[in-house]
């Protein structure tokens, strides 16, 4: 145990009391990273100098008893699809190798203005497309619980650094489960907020109507704390939520007495590992025993959600990624004409999964196919939203396994896109509906791999979602930590 194993809440208390300094904390985290990175490859860029400078500044504020808030001095990692001023931001793509944004994403601005120490940029599936972090142009990330296995994805790097203690918290982005699924596979808490709650300004877009930034932490309390820090109206994002933002931390610790918890019937059976099902059903028993009203609920359209998602997300990405053309920034491969230069830069700059999705999306939007594909997918999305609305008439939250299975071996699914797409079957519906969801670790399978439990809520239902998540965490008493080649023991 070192300071790197503290939760954000614990570390914040230590910094506030003067028991330790941010410099000590940041050093402990960077030291941990120095040891774990050789195995994990979870960071693409580490900003040691920037982090130590930010820590020193934080220490001066703490010494003056004038910290900027609970995150002042806390080392936080960022998924490498969030723009950081002057710090290389690649989205794990070759096409953005060496790209240094001239501005900070809104979330980065918010973290910095609250004194957070940015440790670096974490690995992801290229442009956040994938569920294993194997689709990175800069090499795969390993799961801290078993380096031969994937950490999930696409925010696998952020999940892994939080699990390994090479950051106390991290931000990821979730388009179809890219926060919750790696959180489940790495045994940490990962949360996707209601669409619009966290600004997307400065997030390199994958699918704009689905993307949402959210926190990775070791505890539910830390999750709410970090969400409080990054959520808020942003005039630079036209889809930003304009209403009143609740205090998410306030929702924690109130128990689930009298709450109605709906178990999504469709997320069980074929394709779900028995250990995952057993752990979830045991959690449901405990929730029931502690006073919740646990009922089975059917959300029939979720069966079509995966297909709809794999039309809508590629369609949006086909336009979002059009700007990477070798003209103004990023990789340029020369050609005889401008068109040839663009085509060559893109052919060489994008990896196979990104290329596949751009082609899928272009096809789905093409004249003559739009109605049958993209148009149909939008209809499914609307039906799903109606289904969810009906379900939330009956229950306060919906629950399910986060992932049908625990961490799989590297290479197991990377040659089979359809098998890989099934990773997100339980998480995609929340994105299509714009609803929040959180994954909480609730146990280990027989191989010692973490199992995640998902709590979903209607739009802006974060308070009740956190309330249930905190109780799940309390009941799970999950305190296992990965023993990564002896370095984190």
């Amino acid at each position, binding site marked *: 145990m070192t300071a790197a194993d503290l939760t954000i809440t614990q570390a914040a208390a230590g910094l506030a009391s003067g028991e330790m300094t941010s410099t000590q904390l940041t050093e402990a985290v960077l030291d941990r990273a120095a040891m774990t990175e050789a195995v994990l490859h979870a960071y693409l860029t580490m900003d040691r100098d920037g982090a130590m400078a930010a820590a020193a500044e934080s220490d001066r504020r703490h010494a003056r008893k004038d910290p900027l808030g609970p995150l002042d001095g806390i080392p936080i990692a960022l998924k490498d699809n969030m723009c950081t001023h002057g710090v290389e931001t690649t989205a794990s793509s070759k096409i953005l190798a060496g790209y240094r944004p001239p501005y900070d994403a809104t979330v980065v601005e918010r973290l910095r203005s609250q004194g957070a120490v940015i440790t670096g940029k974490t690995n992801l599936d290229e442009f956040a497309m994938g569920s294993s972090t194997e689709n990175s142009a800069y090499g795969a990330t390993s799961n801290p619980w078993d380096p031969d296995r994937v950490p999930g994805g696409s925010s696998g790097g952020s999940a892994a650094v939080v699990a390994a203690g090479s950051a106390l918290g991290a931000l990821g982005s979730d388009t179809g489960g890219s926060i919750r699924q790696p959180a489940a596979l790495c045994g940490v808490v990962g949360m996707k907020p209601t669409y619009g709650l966290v600004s997307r300004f400065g997030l390199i877009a994958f699918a704009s109507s689905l993307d949402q930034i959210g926190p990775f932490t070791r505890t539910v309390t830390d999750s709410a704390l970090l969400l409080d820090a990054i959520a808020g109206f942003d005039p630079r994002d036209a889809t930003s939520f304009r209403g009143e933002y609740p205090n998410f931390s306030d929702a924690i610790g109130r128990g689930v007495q009298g709450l109605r918890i709906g178990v999504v019937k469709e997320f069980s059976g074929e394709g779900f590992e028995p250990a995952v099902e057993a752990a979830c059903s045991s959690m449901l028993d405990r929730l029931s025993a502690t006073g919740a009203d646990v009922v089975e609920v059917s959300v029939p359209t979720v069966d079509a959600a995966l297909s709809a998602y794999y039309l809508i997300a590629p369609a949006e990405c086909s336009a979002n990624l059009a700007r990477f053309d070798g003209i103004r920034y990023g990789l340029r491969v020369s050609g005889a004409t401008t068109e040839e230069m663009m085509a060559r830069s893109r052919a060489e700059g994008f990896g196979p999964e990104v290329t596949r999705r751009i082609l899928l999306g272009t096809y789905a*939007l093409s004249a003559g196919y739009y109605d049958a594909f993209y148009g149909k997918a939008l209809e499914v999305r609307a039906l799903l939203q109606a289904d969810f609305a009906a379900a939330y008439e009956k229950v306060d939250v919906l629950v399910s396994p986060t992932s049908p299975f625990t961490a799989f071996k590297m290479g197991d699914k990377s040659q089979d896109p359809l098998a890989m797409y099934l990773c997100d079957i339980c998480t995609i519906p929340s994105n299509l509906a714009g609803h929040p969801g959180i994954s909480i670790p609730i146990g280990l399978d027989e191989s010692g791999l973490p199992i995640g439990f998902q709590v979903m809520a209607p739009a802006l239902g974060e308070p009740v979602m956190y309330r249930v998540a905190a109780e799940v965490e309390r009941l799970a008493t999950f305190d296992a930590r990965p023993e990564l080649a002896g370095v984190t023991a």
Partner: protein
Amino acid sequence: MSVLEGWEAVIGIEVHVELLTQSKMFCGCKVGFGDEPNMNVCPTCLGLPGALPVPNRTAIEWISKIGMALNCEISETSVFHRKNYFYADLPKNYQISQFDIPVCHDGFLDVAVDGDTVRIGIERAHQEEDTGKSLHMGEGGRIHAATETLLDFNRSGVPLVEIVSKPDIRTAAQARAYAQELRNVILELDVSDAKLEEGSMRFDANISVRQEGAPEFGTKVEIKNMNSFRSLERAVAYEIERQVDEITSGGTVIQETRHWDEEAGVTHGMRTKEGSSDYRYFTEPDLVPIVIDATWQAEIRQSLPELPAERRARYADLGLDPHLAGVLAGADADLRAVFDHAVDAGADAKAAAIWITGEVTAWLRREDTAPGDSPLTGEWLAALVAMVSDSKVSASAAKDVLDGVMRGEGAPEAVAEGRDLIQISDAGAIAAAVDEVLAANPDAVERYQAGEQKVVGFLVGQVMRATQGKAEPKLVNELLREKLS
């Protein structure tokens, strides 16, 4: 025109107008023309990773004004779409535009052509963003021979309104009149400088021909690169004839985009790529629908100025003929204000209008003076008009009076006094001058009495000379004839 006998052209015009808002459509960058390249740019209008668009409220207000001026319906909720195509000066490689629900739809514009009024339907007016500019270097700037292309993104993201007419236009003259009237409306609304030569107003024409009475449209050809009203008219006329020629000589018109060559006076087919027109439109997920509710619409409607057509009608009611009303309606706003005040002050509308559109405009142009800088007021113009009609000054002396007024010498009466231009209408004074002239020109008198009537003109001239031009010519004439007979 005989070759066109029995043929009818069907023409629709698409007009792009850059709005002269302070900031761009989806970012805070300045809208500025002629600035150093790439000075007015930011992550959003450069299409940098992660940047997002936020719509400009003023632009939405201004396109609504345009729609209202064109008698359009305004969509209470309209939607932005992405129009996808790859082009070097389009930084995102998609343009944020509108597709099935534009801000404005189903309007019309009444256009005067050769004394008739033609109603041209407006299909829609939608909001979009402009592209950057490519500058092809080397080999005379031709795109295919360029060795280097420089990009300037100052224009990227400038609010652009596309106004699409219905295919109601039938002749080249109508096409020109429509474009001109549309420009007048835009200028009146003060939402764009609408300069054709600088490209802040640009038009494309869609033209097909069919035999008169045929129910179906012919194959449509799009004409681009017309940089003046004259070239629009010429290009449309040329293209109509070309298509009729093509068909009557046994060929077929192919659907294509053609480029107008101003110097050669012809259209050329452009190399078009297969499938290039599939823009894969879909709803822009970075933006929420634009809502222009009844309250906002009412506010915008309230701010509409008097439009050219309304103004022409008002002038016609004052008794101006359509031509004069049209010219005056197109005059500078400051001059129109002088006219309105002069009429209010009791001036004869026609005389005042002729002064404003004639001598006043000519003086300002000659002296390179802005209308707003001239001291001429409506009251003074009314006074000048009255001085002429009361024969206080002659028509030619009145021009001198105006010159003095314009030069700041004071009110017309004062100028006329100061410059000694008041007509002599005292019969006694003129009679004396007449007597002198008759005495000095006995041979002229003789010739007159011998029946040579035209010699009167010479004698009048002599009297005018003797009075330094101040004698009232009518009176001189009368007295001369009296004394000669």
